């Protein structure tokens, strides 16, 4: 069902070196690890802790024939579609959020058959990554049975060898590359996250290459001071990118809220001009800047301060 089988991913992992080395690089260099035709899994969920600095670097490089998977996809999907980078979407939901209505650019491509949307249930996506992370070819589940989703995807069932009960056999997904945004990482790739973890740990462990951006690059001592906060160990990470505000305009738990005005402006352009509106957004917000820092600078300190204040209010600080 995917390019890489679990056993092939496992063999590759066995053969891979795990040097404890300085893995810091720019977002541009990290995005250079991604090839045309790769399956790229994007961490976070909808507009929460999306690795936007990495997504923008990948958009800037105009890859072709990518597949993108993620748990609930936001408007970054439309940017990949409008730049001609994306052949296939693998997720359970695509939009921005209820107030913004249906995603017009996504509709344009999928309704014309110009991009494929493999729609799984939310838990099935989670189990696909988890099976990949566990090194097994599928996980049994009681979900998705009887639905037309199962039929459209060719989802198979399996009979329990002990009780005979019928279960959905949710196939593993081992993405070529995982993009994850975190609160903190050291240069070796020990990664810490605050708040909800979405499906990030499983996505990373399932993937063949893992690129992590972090709000702060910290010392190994700071990681070791709170080892219970570590989501990924260094040997599961290939590249570390410093990216302050690296989820903007999406939220990063405890640090800044989502920039709804930014979404609204994008959604209006996409609704009015379709793919051309999304492409214009990429030209103005991605291509215009040599790096993500330029995009953050353009947002301006006042807006960033307001989003940080939103987060503080919700943290009760």
């Amino acid at each position, binding site marked *: 069902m995917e390019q890489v089988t679990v056993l092939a991913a496992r063999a590759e992992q066995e053969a891979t070196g795990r040097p404890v080395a300085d893995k810091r690089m720019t977002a541009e260099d990290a995005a250079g690890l991604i090839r045309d035709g790769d399956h790229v899994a994007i961490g976070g*969920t*909808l*507009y*929460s802790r999306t690795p936007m600095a990495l997504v923008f670097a990948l958009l800037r490089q105009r890859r072709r024939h990518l597949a993108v998977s993620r*748990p*609930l996809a936001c408007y970054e999907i439309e940017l990949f579609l409008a730049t001609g980078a994306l052949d296939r979407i693998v*997720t*359970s*939901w*695509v*939009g921005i*959020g*209820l107030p913004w209505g*249906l*995603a017009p650019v996504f*509709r344009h491509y*999928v*309704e014309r*058959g110009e991009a494929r*949307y493999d*729609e*799984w*249930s*939310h*838990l*099935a996506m*989670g*189990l696909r*990554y*988890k099976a990949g992370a566990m090194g097994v070819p599928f996980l049994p*589940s*009681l*979900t*998705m*049975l*009887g*639905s*037309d*989703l199962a039929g*459209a995807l060719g989802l198979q*069932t399996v009979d329990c060898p002990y009780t005979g*009960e*019928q*279960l959905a056999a949710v196939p593993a997904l081992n993405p070529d590359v995982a993009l994850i945004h975190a609160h903190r990482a050291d240069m070796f790739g020990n990664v810490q996250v605050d*708040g*909800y*973890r*979405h*499906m*990030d740990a*499983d996505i990373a462990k399932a993937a063949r290459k893992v690129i992590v951006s972090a709000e702060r690059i910290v010392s190994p001592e700071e990681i070791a001071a709170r080892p219970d906060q570590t989501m990924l160990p260094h040997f599961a990470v290939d590249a570390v990118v410093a990216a302050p505000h690296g989820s903007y305009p999406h*939220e990063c*738990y*405890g640090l800044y*809220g*989502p920039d709804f005005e930014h979404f609204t402006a994008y959604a209006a352009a996409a609704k009015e001009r379709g793919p051309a509106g999304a492409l214009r957004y990429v030209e103005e917000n991605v291509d215009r800047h040599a790096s993500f820092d330029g995009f953050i600078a353009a947002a301006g300190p006042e807006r960033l301060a307001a989003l940080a204040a*939103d987060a503080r209010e*919700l*943290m*009760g600080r």
Partner: protein
Amino acid sequence: MGDVTAEELMAITASRLLADHKVVFAGVGMPLLASAVARHMHAPHLTIVLEGGIIGTSLLPGKLPISTNEMRAAYGAQMLTDITDVFLYAQRGYFDYGFLGAAQVDMYGNINTSVIGSMDRPRVRLPGSGGANDIISLCNEVLIVTQHEPRRFVERVDFITSPGYLSGGDSRARAGLACGRLGAVVTDLALLDFEPASRRMRLRGLQAGVTAGQVREQTGFDLLVGGDIEELVPPSAEELAIYRELRDGPPPAGGDGMTDAKRAGAADPVPAGPA
């Protein structure tokens, strides 16, 4: 108190179906609002779970989330975990209620949020299941809340994104969906359930001033009618005040919102917000 909107009527009617000391897995929008109203009225020990990995959320009045994956959804939560973990609690049987909205629902409670038209050449590609398929498959009792219109209540959905009773009878169980049952459907006109043998949707209650004929007119299939049709009690002033405060934030001083005790979470076993 002003006119009651359809949303207020639906959310408050639905809130009364949620019992105290239960766990509800709620979608955003009306299901979440209804669950929050229940917590402030008769069910202070109702635990609200959201699919973003959020267990036991409190919600900050006037700052309701529009996604289940954002800080506003996590306000005052007892536990933050990952998404898959939350759904596996559902699969294990911990969640008494699954609570969903529906763009299109049919006579057997099947929900479509995938396509209008065919999957291969959709006329409209809708966003997709999100967690709805899992919630309806895995929670112990499923409640659906949606506006009562013929285009929403169809005989057969174009596509079964989230399985209700499939084609009726025992077809849900035969498909391997051993757990979960559909409880009620709440609308701005009526309260409905599913007749136990055929599993077809059935009228059980009417909102105040609504007739069975009006409900039939707004339903795109032949609706069964239960024996005793209950007349639903209109929202009280207190329920409306709580609903509106949750939605809009605290009213100006002297308003008739939540009592101070409720606002401070005095009835709750846990604090209303982070310390």
